[in-house]
């Protein structure tokens, strides 16, 4: 009998425990690829958001409460992401940051939408993510049609006439490739090659041989940096010197490491500015505290955009004095104006897309550094 009484009391404590704890903190979810092929981006996202959350807590927290980051690993995989999203949705989070890949974000969108949680993606640029009338979905990154517009402008400025477009069949890369092709339709350039490679392989000589046989002036590769690096390396081994331009998923210093300086030199890519080129004071402060804590600068802009997503959420909670999803979404849609983000001023349109011009053209120089082109 005593034992039974003890169990009942214990059960009472357990039942009473979680809600009491929940009141003391504001939970913000972070969904990122901690494993899988984009794990490097995910680790950076985690470090950045945790650093910023630590800073908020040191300042005295948010609405007098500590911010608690709840992390879900999406593995860079849509199925894993759906499970991670379901777990985060039941963990009482006020908003969710993430994630990197567009197909991954897409797998989680409806789960957060039906749970009534604000989601701010940081690296998912596929157009259709914000064309679904989801009232709680936002992103701090620009979308692919914006990038495609800048890509076409760059191609036209260089007077390329025979253009080859290569993607990798991911939602993101195909979206960018399709959009670029569409915009090129009424230009005087001709798309002489439009096809996809299989990401994750090592040998792309078959594709390069085929590309070379159509003799393009320029190749626009919309996929990710590991493949771009292999293409550049094998292109040099073949002794082929056609210029390559990449999409923004090539903005990673590992590109040069994999391809080698010699093969990477001359490669251009479109991207929002790299972390080191971020102009604002907030960005400089952030980068120096990041370096102090983790010893190096973040690898890519996408992880920094997760930091911006966090800062925007904090701002919205502060301004509305609430964690109510409708109030937060309403604030982000209508009242947030030119918020000083790490990556420049931030505001959102009615679709949840970030407003403003962020893309730049970069070129890899002979030393293997990324140089901003004006």
């Amino acid at each position: 009998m005593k034992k039974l009484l003890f169990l009942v009391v214990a059960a009472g404590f357990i039942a009473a425990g979680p809600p009491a704890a929940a009141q003391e903190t504001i939970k913000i979810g972070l969904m990122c690829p901690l494993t899988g092929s984009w794990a490097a981006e995910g680790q950076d996202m985690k470090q950045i958001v945790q650093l910023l959350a630590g800073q908020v807590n040191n300042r005295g927290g948010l609405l007098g409460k500590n911010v608690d980051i709840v992390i879900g690993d999406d593995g860079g995989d849509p199925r894993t992401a759906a499970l991670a999203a379901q777990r985060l949705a039941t963990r009482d989070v006020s908003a969710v940051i993430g994630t990197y890949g567009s197909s991954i974000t897409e797998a989680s969108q409806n789960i957060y939408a039906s749970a009534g949680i604000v989601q701010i993606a940081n690296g998912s640029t596929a157009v259709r993510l914000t064309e679904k009338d989801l009232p709680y979905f936002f992103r701090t990154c620009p979308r692919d049609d914006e990038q495609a517009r800048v890509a076409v402008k760059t191609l036209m400025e260089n007077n390329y006439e025979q253009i080859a477009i290569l993607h990798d069949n991911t939602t993101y890369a195909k979206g960018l490739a399709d959009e670029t092709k569409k915009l090129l339709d009424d230009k005087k350039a001709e798309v002489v090659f439009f096809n996809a490679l299989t990401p994750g392989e090592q040998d792309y000589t078959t594709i390069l041989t085929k590309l070379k046989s159509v003799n393009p002036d320029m190749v626009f590769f919309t996929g990710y940096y590991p493949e771009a690096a292999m293409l550049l390396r094998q292109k040099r081994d073949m002794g082929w010197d056609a210029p390559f331009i990449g999409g923004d998923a090539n903005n990673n210093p590992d590109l040069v490491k994999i391809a080698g300086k010699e093969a990477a030199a001359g490669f251009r890519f479109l991207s929002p500015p790299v972390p080191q080129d971020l102009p604002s004071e907030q960005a400089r402060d952030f980068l120096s505290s990041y370096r102090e804590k983790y010893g190096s600068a973040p690898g890519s802009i996408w992880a920094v955009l997760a930091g911006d997503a966090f800062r925007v959420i904090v701002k919205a909670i502060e301004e509305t004095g609430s964690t109510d999803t409708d109030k937060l979404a309403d604030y982000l849609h209508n009242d947030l104006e030119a918020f000083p983000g790490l990556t420049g001023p931030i505001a959102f349109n009615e679709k949840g897309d970030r407003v403003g011009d962020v893309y730049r053209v970069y070129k890899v120089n002979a030393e293997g550094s990324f140089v901003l082109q004006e």
Partner: protein
Amino acid sequence: MEVFFTQLTNGLAVGGIYALIALGYTMVYGVLKLINFAHGDLFTIGAYLGLSLLTSLALTDHVGAAAGIVILAVMVMGLVGVIGILLDRAAYKPLRTSPRLSAVVSALGASIVFSNTVMLVYGPNPRVYPQGILPTQVFEVFGLSVPVMRFVILAASVILMIGLYVFIQRTKIGTAIRAAAIDQDAARLMGINVDRVIMLVFFIGPALGGAAGVMVGLYYGQIKFTMGWIYGLKAFTAAILGGIGNIPGAMVGGLLLGVIESLGAAYISMAWKDAIAFFVLILILIARPTGLLGERVAEKV
């Protein structure tokens, strides 16, 4: 025509690597009727160990590039072979008498453990082999320009494969392996130490996978902890294509798969490359259920 032959050499180079990995699958299957799904990850471990040894020992600086690479490959083969034996001890030996499915599940588990261990030890970023070790000359033959390393890789694969074939067919130990493959109990009655044979098989198969890993690292430069999966899958397909359990079959299957992929991508559809390869696999299995050179009917796993 020039493009066709270039694509053919592209396919043969990739196929040589598939074939080398396929040998590991086929040897283990031949003796134990077990598909060692962790084999692709042993290949990855070989690539990473090669990188560590190459950068820490600086072998190529001391003894020259060619000798350095041979010594490196031998060291990696030895290490990966030992890991193969440990894998057998830890994951397969306790299940020797269990139903076949248990060992397959254990193999998948071992694969996950290996690839995640590599990620934890070496980090999730792609790693890069030092450059400038291999010659980058381009070979001119019949009007084709083919990087000289493509021939070297293909030649190295073929030499290792022929060496293995001769070892299995002509030596006493090879005969013991073949005997154990046919009937373990009968082999035991003939005085063959079957446990020793299995250990040897788990040394040689992973060692060849490790050699393939070093080759991929040296030639392609970039290695990833996830790369074992895709290579493993292709090599497994190659082994089935040639007739699993059959060593010349693995060679033929690997080279053929590489060429089918390359020509399929070049002349049919690039995005459907893998689909074409698997379609050909299905056609061949319909015509010859045991694979191209397979003798025994492959049992269902």
